[in-house]
């Protein structure tokens, strides 16, 4: 990896291992790097501990999405999904368990997979793809169950609304659609850019950031980041963040959002921005909280640089891992 390549590297996705001791990160060259958090967070860590313990090329295209189940790391790149066993990866064995490709109608170009989400109820994987559809893959049987059609432009992000067994998807066409997991029909369609309080016509109408905790939903992108109450389908608060947000998460009583701008924004549910914590990449693409481990509870963010910032205390950046 020469210095020019490192300069042009962007980190698009991250995922923590089920034990919480490793972090997998995917970049725009199709590589996945495994970092040992236990080594990097130990009191006698050196700069060598901030380098990956394993780097391998997973796909031919950028790895836009990474997801971990109890034993498997799922990675999406170049229009296909590959599964890697975590214990094998920790032993540095880089053979994928399986690789699957959803059946795209057009054979001219390969649509990219932008986002994946797991529905724990029926053990299925929702894949938001560039062919404007959401494909549902049954992880037990390994077959594609349903294709949710309805969007008119590529799907940026998907997330699962656990309590009601619904899937939410946000797309470039500005609509957030809610799908019923069993029937595969679109239950609701919210066009965020049509609401005056959220719309920002200077940025566009695309939705790149979607997250939910069953009652509330955060969505943003072209329109401002806004908090929606799902029962009444109405926007309750709009956050005055200047850039376009790419990822957001609910954390305790706060909302963490990353996107344009070299900082992590902490916001309160009422709509005020509590603070913006600076970090190294000039713009951020991915944000992950390690909720699975109790001793390595960190927040990691990655973006338009080969460095991944690690926050042990949410108020400041502790150190950076580098590819």
């Amino acid at each position, binding site marked *: 990896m020469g210095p020019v390549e490192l300069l042009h590297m962007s980190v698009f996705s991250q995922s923590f291992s089920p034990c919480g001791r490793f972090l997998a990160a995917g970049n725009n060259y199709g590589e996945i790097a495994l970092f040992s958090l236990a080594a990097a967070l130990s009191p006698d860590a050196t700069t060598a501990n901030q380098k990956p313990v394993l780097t391998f090329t997973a796909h031919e295209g950028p790895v836009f999405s990474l997801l971990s189940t109890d034993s498997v790391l799922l990675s999406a790149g170049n229009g296909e999904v590959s599964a890697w066993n975590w214990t094998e990866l920790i032993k540095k064995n880089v053979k994928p368990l399986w690789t699957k490709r959803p059946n795209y109608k057009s054979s001219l170009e390969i649509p990219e997979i932008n986002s994946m989400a797991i529905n724990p109820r029926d053990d299925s994987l929702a894949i938001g793809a560039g062919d404007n559809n959401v494909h549902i893959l049954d992880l037990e049987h390994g077959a594609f169950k349903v294709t949710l059609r309805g969007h008119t432009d590529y799907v940026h992000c998907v997330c699962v609304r656990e309590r009601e067994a619904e899937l939410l998807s946000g797309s470039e066409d500005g609509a957030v659609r809610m799908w019923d997991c069993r029937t595969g029909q679109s239950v609701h369609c919210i066009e965020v850019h049509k609401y005056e309080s959220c719309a920002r016509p200077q940025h566009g109408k695309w939705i790149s950031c979607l997250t939910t905790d069953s009652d509330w939903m955060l969505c943003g992108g072209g329109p401002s980041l806004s908090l929606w109450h799902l029962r009444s389908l*109405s926007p309750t608060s709009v956050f005055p963040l200047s850039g376009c947000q790419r990822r957001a998460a609910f954390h305790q*009583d706060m909302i963490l959002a990353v996107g344009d701008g070299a900082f992590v924004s902490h916001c*309160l549910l009422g709509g005020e921005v509590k603070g913006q914590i600076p970090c190294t990449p000039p713009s951020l693409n991915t944000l992950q909280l390690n909720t699975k481990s109790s001793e390595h509870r960190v927040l990691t963010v990655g973006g338009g640089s080969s460095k991944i910032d690690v926050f042990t205390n949410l108020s400041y950046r502790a150190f950076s891992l580098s590819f």
Partner: protein
Amino acid sequence: MGAVTDDEVIRKRLLIDGDGAGDDRRINLLLKSFTKWCNSPGSPEEGFTQYQRMLGTLAQCEFSMGKTLMVYDMNLREMENYEKIYSNIEQNITSAHDKIAECKKEIQRAKRIRKNRQEYDALAKIIQQHPDRHETLKQLEALDKELQHLSHIKENVDAKLELRKKQFHVLLTTIQELQQTLENDEKSDNDDQSQESPAQNGE
């Protein structure tokens, strides 16, 4: 204590107290002067002064021994004191740990409460934007009443229309019948007249 060997004790004492700087030398000197005094053939005054001097030295030795004993006592008591302080501090540390755990739980609870309050506020903001339920109900009632009133009026007007229609119908039929009767009468009159005149002409 048994681990400290005699060698070490001797080495330490030699290091600190070289050639017996003070006590040991004094005891040796005392012994030497005592034997010299016992065997001295000197005058009784000299013997007496020497005797006094020996008593003095003896007193000094006793004094220094007493001092050492007291220092030893003091050390023991200091040790006890430090042990007490040490256990006290340990207790404080454990209780502080417990308090920290409690506070952490409190903070989690407080954060949850704050989140709930903020969600409530957000929903309340939206609800405020919608009009009051009582007002809307009142408006609905008023509209209902108006609707009823108007339909009542409509019924009345309809009934009147029907009545007038029937009355006009009756009137018109009566007029037509009268017209018919009058025409019939005229026709029968003309017939009668034309019958009478040929009868008159015939006569």
